[in-house]
Each structure stands twice: as C-alpha cells, then as structure tokens.
C-alpha cells in the first residue's frame, strides 16, 4: 500500500518535473526542475530495490552533471530566444520522433509482457537473492567483466589524451611565475641608487 502510494507520488513528480524542464522559460529554472526529476527517479529506483543505481543517480547526476549544466547555462552567453526561434520549424520532425519513441515504448512493453522463463534463465548474470546489489555489481564488475572494465578505462584515457592533444597549445606572450628565478634574484639586480642633480630629472 505505502509502496504504491510512494510509486505514484514519485512517478507523478518525475513526469511533472520533466515537463517543466522543457517548458520553463528561464534555463536556470529548467536545470533546477531537472534536478528534481533526478531525485524522484532515484526514489523510483529505491522502490525497485536498485539502491546502488539510486545513489548513483543522486551522486553523479544531481551532484555533478546537473551542477555542470547549471554552470554552463549561467556562464555561457547563449541567446535562448534565438534557440526558440526554430521551434515551430522543427516541430514536425520533433513530433515524428516523439511518435516513434512512443511506438518503441509500446513495443518494449509487449516484449516485457511476453518474456518467458526461457529468456530469464538464459541471463548471464541473474539477479542474486541474498547479496545486496552493490556487492553483486562489484562481484561481476571486477571478475566476470574485468576485461571490458579495463577496456572502458582505456576509453577514458583516450578521451583525456584526445582532449589535451586537440586543445593544448603553447601560448606566446604569457608570463608564468618562475619561483627559482625569483628566489635567486638579489637586491642589486633590482634596485639602482641614483643621485639626480637638482633641476634634472631621473633617467629610468
């Protein structure tokens, strides 16, 4: 009973927040609505017994991704009125995509309906009964799927190398601090005593 109430509460708030995300006029408000949607999605995950994914949603999406969005929205000078200008023009395409997605959801719904014990039995990693799912994921990730886990690590490394290769350049005319040179400097290199005669200026 209480689960059902919680489910409908979370589900309604997720959908409402998602609708507000795309309809809010102010992009900062959009991001805040998005954060609300993430929180409630995490609630749905907890209800399904996937507490690890729920925590991941809060930590990664709310904690990092959404805040990053907020920074981007606030720091970049984007003309949102210009963005909206194309709305009517692209509406047919958008609607077609939306219809396509709805059809896919229905298709998936039928698929889940028809899934029989045969397919469930073939699963390489059935849902464990007795261990908490953080432990279950850890067990699989570092044993059975170690190969792809390391592969994913290399993918991230390549992404990092790529970003540096494509953007880093030697800038001319910058004045970086050289601490060794600063320490090695002596007063007589920096100070000059002059005694200017009266009525004449100082030559620097």
């Amino acid at each position, binding site marked *: 009973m209480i689960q059902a109430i919680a489910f409908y509460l979370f589900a309604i708030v997720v959908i409402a927040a998602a609708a507000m995300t795309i309809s809010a006029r102010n992009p900062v408000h959009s991001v805040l609505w998005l954060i609300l949607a993430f929180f409630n999605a995490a609630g749905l995950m907890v209800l399904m017994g996937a507490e690890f994914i729920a925590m991941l949603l809060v930590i990664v999406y709310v904690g990092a991704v959404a805040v990053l969005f907020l920074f981007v929205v606030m720091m970049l000078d984007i003309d949102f009125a210009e963005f909206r200008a194309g709305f009517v023009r692209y509406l047919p395409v958008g609607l077609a995509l939306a219809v396509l997605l709805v059809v896919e959801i229905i*298709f*998936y719904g039928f*698929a889940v309906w*028809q*899934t029989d014990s*045969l*397919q*469930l*039995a*073939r*699963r*390489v990693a059935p849902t464990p009964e007795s261990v908490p799912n953080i432990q279950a994921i850890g067990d699989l990730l570092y044993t*059975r*799927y*170690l*190969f*792809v886990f390391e*592969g*994913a690590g*290399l*993918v991230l*490394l*390549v*992404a990092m*190398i*790529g970003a*540096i*290769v*494509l953007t880093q*350049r030697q800038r001319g005319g910058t004045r970086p601090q050289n601490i060794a040179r600063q320490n090695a400097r002596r007063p007589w290199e920096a100070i000059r005593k002059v005694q200017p005669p009266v009525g004449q200026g100082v030559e620097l």
Partner: protein
Amino acid sequence: MSYATMLTIALPEIVLSLGALALMLAAAWGGQAAARPVCWAALVVLIGAGIALAGPSSSGVEAFYGLYRADAFSAYSKVLIYAAAGIAILMAPRFFERTGGDNLRPEYPVLILLAAVGMGMMVSAGDLLSLYVGLELQNLAHYVLASFMRRDTRSAEAGLKYFVLSSLASGILLYGISLIYGFSGTTGFDGIADAFATANSTGLTFGLVFVLVGLAFKIAAVPFHMWTPDVYEGAPTPVTAYFASAPKVAAMALIVRVAVEAMGPVTIEWRQIVIFASLASIFFGSVAAINQKSIKRLLAYSSINNIGFALVGLAAGTPEGVSSVLVYMTVYIVMTLGSFMVVIRMRDEEGRQIETIASLSGMSKTRPGLALAFMAFMFSLAGIPPLFGFYPKLAVFNAAVAAGLFPLAVLAVVGSVIGAYYYIRIVKTMYFDDPAPAFAVSGSTVENGLIAATAIAISPVAYLAIPALTGWSMAAAQALF
C-alpha cells in the same frame, strides 16, 4: 581458468596497452623532441604484439568468461591490423615535417597503438559488450587522429563530422544491442545464436537489423557511407591511409564474426541485408567516383566500392566465403596503402600537398617510377589480371557462385567493369596527357621501400603466395564455423 592464464591469452592487447602507456609517459616528459623516438618505439611495440600472437593467443581458446576469443580468425585479422597500423606510423614523420606548423606530436603513435588495442578487442569479441567497448576505443582515437592537424580547418571539420556521424551510428548499434539483449536475455554470441535458433522473434530480427546497420556504418557500406569522402579528404593523408586500411579490416572482421557466430542460425535473414549493402556499395562506389577531382576523394569512393566486393564473400555465408573476405581484405589494404603512399608524394616545389587528379598529368615522363607503381595499384584495384588484385575478386565471386548466388556474382562483375573506368582514367591521365608541373623530389628510403614492397606484393609474383594465403585464411575461417 586462472587469471594468469587469461592474461597470457590476451597477451597482444596487454603488450599494446602497456606499451602505449609507457610511450605516453615518454611523450609527456619528452615533449616535441620525443616524437620520432616514440614512433620507432611504437613500431617495436606493434611487432612485439604481433609476436605475442604466436602463443596461446591464436590457439582457439576463450578467455574472460567468453568475452574474448583467441582463435585463428582473430589472429589473422590482427596481423593485418598491426601491419597497417605500423605503416601508418611509418608514413607520418615525413608528412608532418612539411605541413607548415602542424608538427608531428608524439601522441600520434600512442593514439594509433590505443586504437590497435580497440581493434584487437573488436576482432576478438565473443560478446556484444566487448564488441562495443573495443569499437568505442578505436573510434575515439580516430576522431582525434582525423583532426590532428589543428591549423587546417578541413582536418577539424573531418574530425567533427566523423565524431557526430559515428556517434549516431554507435547509438543505432547500441539500440540493436539492447533489443537483442532484451529478447535473448544474453549478450554472449553463443547465447544469441542459441536464441536465434530456438526462439526467434520479431524483436530479435529488429535487433539484428539495427546491429548490422551500425556495423555497416563503420565499414562505410552504402547507404551508410556519407561520411567517408569528407573525412578521407579532410584528414591528414597518413591518417586517411590508416582509416582506409586497419579499421576497415577490424570492422569487416567484426561484421563477419557477428554474422557467422551470433547470427549464424538466421543466415537467410541477414543475407538479404548484406547483398543489398554489397551491390549498393559496388555500384555507388563506381559511379560516384567518376566525377571526382580530388585523388583522396576518389580513393574514398574506391574503398566504398571495394568493401562492396568483400561483402559479396560474406553474403555466401560459408567457410569459403569468409576465407575469401579475409583474402580480399589482405590484398585490399596492400593496394590502398600503396596508393596513399604515392598520394603523399604529390607535392609542389614548396612542399605543399597537391590533391587534384589533374596534377598527375604526364607523370610517366616526370616521375616514371612513381607513375609505374601507381599504375600497378590502379590496375590492381580495378581487378585486371595479371595483377594480384584480380585474385581476391575471383575468390569472392567463386564463393558467391558456390553458395548459389549467381545473380549477385553477375551483378558484382558488371559493377567491377564500371569501376574499372575511373581507375583506368587515372592511368590515362598519367601516361597520355600533357605533363603538368612535376612534383618535387621528396621522400625517404623508407617511403620508397614501402612503395616498392607494396607494388611487388600486388604484382604477378604474388600468385606464388596463393597456396599459403588460402591456407591461412581457410584455417582462420574454419575457426568461426
């Protein structure tokens, strides 16, 4: 199986990854000056990985719980991939010397090594997960390589275009993978084959179509070829040569493995898709190339055309067919790398790269040796005997006929006749047109040696190698069935 055993089975990938990491450190501390030593060290690493293939890595075992297959098929493909990657590294230093500001940076060989790890994962994949991670690893390195010349806007455009379109294709592929997982309950190739055989459904067929579409994009088969000419034209020439060789072999081997191992029970279903992509690539690749002005674009269409012929062998779906695909890819990368090495030599007096076909006019008088080699590559790509490019075409047609696909073989022969036109037109430009300004004399002994070696490898002498070539490729193909 203990982890130590698994690691020895995946030794080529481990050698490449550790080598790449060590060279990355060398590059980070050595800076610009380390570029050439890192290139040579990367070659040594590639050779080391090739030697590591001789051990348990080609013995037909599985490692990492079915995620990684170490059979003769993967070993054969990896030899081709490592060789092509090595040549791409060899071509680079001289090219970047003359780009005017865009120096060769030591990250170039490191990225190629990491891409080679990804390609190795692709051809050894026994599971949709390792397939996808390998594919993304090589893709990500390729985006960076395509836009490696940062001062050249065309290079940046090539990288961006490649990135956007390739991401779209990855999305389509992932969608197919999710459908297949949903309807079969597993991502392992054996389990998927089992599901296709016992409980085939519409959902699985949908998944099959999407997976094949995603992979067809990676081999640039028509109708998923749009990115190829632009990316090939914009990327630095050594990178283009590399794109046209190693990743093509990897993606082709991957599509063959997925089709045969995971979708073997429904050969009837994927055969129609492969036949369509094959004929469309052959005809589109031939017709669209006719009007090209840039030699790099022409070679891009040529690669689309050639992939079509390789798919003819896959459409047969038999061990002979798979073996003919491997032979085709072997000869194809030799011809393509040779052609691109000639293209790299096309420079004016100031060392600027020229890419127009018109500038080849009368090259037989100004640079007879180079013209002779280029003529050999063009005739060979057209599949004209007695050059060796004829033999793989014969092999794929034979396999298709043996599988009862007469119409496909006949149409493919017709397509190859159309394709011959634009290859021969280049030979005509070189030999019978009035000389254009001669190219600057450039190139090192390494480049000369590579052009000569590839030209000899496709000359009639190569017919002596047919027994060995068919023996190896047949052993590799048998590993899949």
